[in-house]
């Protein structure tokens, strides 16, 4: 997928929010949706079960308008977190320019986080993408929960961030850290675009 098209002067970034079930990926998107002016956002597509679990995926297109003469679009996706939806996850990952890994800060969810991270690596590999090369940021969500239930960002960094990618602590429900995360991943994606051969 060509990120920058010099001929049609378009930049399209596909960013996938990945992570274990109930970690808050869709919440991230909802918060962003709520902050983007109407004229800038497309319809958010969300396929959820009755209990609000993502069934297929969420999709939020954002139009950033003309930037440096390029019409710039971001496409934000989430994957269903539940283990048995792996085929969908793999499908959504296809052509992703960057991945936000939304981790659950709760201490008891640590194994789910690790499992999901491994699942991300293997799914990327299926697409022939090395997790070390794709722009990736970590978000430690639910940092608003009581201290005794969660791990600190530093602990989570130790446990999950062995590749040393940018990490953000967040409270997606209230919007804390959501845009910081989005900025972080955007910067990585766009910088890679600068470094890579864009034709």
């Amino acid at each position, binding site marked *: 997928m060509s990120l920058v098209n*010099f001929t049609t*002067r378009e*930049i399209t970034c596909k960013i996938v929010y990945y992570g274990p079930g109930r970690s808050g990926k869709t919440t991230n998107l909802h918060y*962003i949706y709520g902050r983007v002016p109407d004229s800038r956002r497309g319809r958010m597509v969300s396929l959820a079960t009755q209990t609000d679990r993502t069934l297929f995926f969420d999709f939020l297109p954002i139009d950033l308008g003309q*930037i440096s*003469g390029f019409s*710039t679009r971001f496409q934000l996706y989430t994957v269903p977190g539940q283990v048995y939806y792996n085929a969908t996850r793999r499908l959504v990952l296809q052509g992703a320019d960057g991945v936000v890994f939304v981790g659950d800060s709760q201490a008891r969810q640590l194994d789910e986080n690790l499992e999901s991270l491994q699942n991300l690596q293997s799914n990327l590999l299926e697409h022939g993408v090395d997790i070390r090369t794709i722009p990736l940021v970590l978000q430690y969500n639910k940092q608003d929960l009581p201290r005794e239930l969660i791990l600190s960002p530093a602990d989570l960094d130790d446990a999950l961030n062995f590749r040393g990618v940018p990490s953000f602590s967040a409270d997606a429900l209230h919007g804390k850290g959501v845009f910081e995360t*989005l*900025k972080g991943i*955007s910067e990585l994606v766009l910088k890679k675009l600068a470094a890579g051969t864009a034709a």
Partner: protein
Amino acid sequence: MTSALNPKYSFDTFVVGAANRLAVTAGRTVAESPGAAYNPLFIYSGSGLGKTHLLMAVGHAAKKAAPKLNIEYLTLDEYVEAFHASVAAGQGDAFRRRFQNVDVLLVDDVQFLTNRKEMQSELLRLTEALQAAGRQIVLTSDCPPPDIADLDERLISRLSGGLVVDIGTPDYETRVAILRRKAEERGARFEPGVLETVARTEVGNVRELMGALNRLVAFQAVNDTSINAETVKQILGLGGGEGEGGAAPPGDGRAAAAAKSGGGDEFGEFLADVTVTVGKAVEAWRARVGEAVLRWEGEGYRTHRLEALLQRDAPAAVDDAIAAFAGDVERLKALEAEVADLDPQAAGQSVFRDPERLREAEEAAAKVRAGAAPPPGPSAAFPLAAFAVGPSNQVAVSAARAALERPGKKYNPLVLVGKSGLGKTHLLNAIGLELARGKRAVVACLSTQAFVDELIAAIDGNRVDWWRGRYRRATALLLDDIHLLAGKERTQEELFNLFNLLQDKDRQLVFTAPAHPNTLSGLEERIVSRLEGGLVAELKEPDRDVKRAVLERMLNQQGVNPEPALIDYLADRPTDSVRSLVGLLQRVVGAAAAQDGPLSAGLAREVLEGQSARDTRRSSGFRTSGLVVSSLGGIKSREKVVWDWIDVADRMIEEFR
């Protein structure tokens, strides 16, 4: 290694105010007449006040005024890096030379000289050299020379010796002017008073000012509403009060406002952020082109084509253009290497350094290819088959055959010695012809005199390298009459080197000489010993077998079927060389032609023993076996001396004396 001048940073885009007027004036003066006014020009200021802009502007202006000037802009870090790289590559001298040829040297961020003793002395040396040559140096730093920590005293006095100027923080009016110009560059329009409000904030440098402007541009783009002077303060978090009053609730107020207003701001910030990143990313092609320009320029190639790309807004297929350029350069390199092999002189031509002139380069290479004639080869008039063999020259001929079987390995060098007219030249050329049959054989076979003449012409034409290259490519070198090298020191020198080179590569060397090399005078010892190092084979006075063979061949060539008696008679005549034998035969043939009679032993006897003196016509030269031999001088044959007597009567008188 060095950075390109950013085309955006010119004097035209530099906003001049009270704080930087002196620096700009000095910069302009320097650009107009490099090396003449303030040398070196030292500009210092805090970060973000336009040092780099001004430095590059000097470069642009100087280039505009005199396009031929060699202008180099680089940061000190790049200078250090380049120095280390060249030292690591063992090219320290090349590094120095490179910078000493710069007409205007622009060095950014000199403050990083701190703790770099070796660079300090390098820069000192360079500064001295450039100043001595009247070339301009402009440096920038964040502090004046004496304040750069740990700087060599001599360098301080050097750097302070020209003009040291500073750029201060821009005043309010300048700030407004800068904001207006930048807003205009971005095509952004603001309501009156907006930019003035921004300018009223106390900022440390221009970069911060640009940051504020960026946020306004982004905010206005997001909200599709124009900003007024009041909203500016909100957006920039300046608080409610005027000017300094804004310091009271800075961070807090902003966060609260964002939370309250429901986050148009949050998205706006995100957008501003992305705008900056995209701007950089899209501009990344410039960086790539710039890199390519630097790389190829560094290798000495002209990069007009790539520089032209930089002038455009957003060229399509930048990478293709770079790749095409690289391809052309590769082709040029290949051509140059090929030409260098053929003619080192021609390889220096500038066409091989300009991808725009690739076609010319191709033509030049073709010319060299055609012009790089192989060294003179053996004459086809002396086939080995026609060489008459007999006991007198058996040794030499077998040596020649042995050498032919294993060229360069058996007898190397092979030296054929013998008096004039014994067939040395014939045998030499015959060996050459046989050697030339080999695949890719380049046989140099010529007389020593021609060898000397060629060298003289090459020296005269300043293309000795080309001359050498020609012979070094030879797979065999055969020189006739090596004794003619006597007294020609330069040729002996060249031959000596060539000899060693060829012998090392097992290439056959054959020489002829009138006598054993160690009896030849005027030859350097090292040449003689090398000649003796192979095989010295002697050709003796022709025996009867040789003479008969020669006579039969000559007569057959003329379509004459001679009577055996004639052959016997001529072969028995005392002749000391094949050449004189041929001479005898020519006289007889000439006489027969004059008489219109048959060739017979009787006629021969008559002609040669003077029984009937006739007017035998003689020309000053005649053709023997394809070689024109002058009959005048240099030939010590007894028979030929006799020719010079007009008739027997003269000869009698002479004897009676």
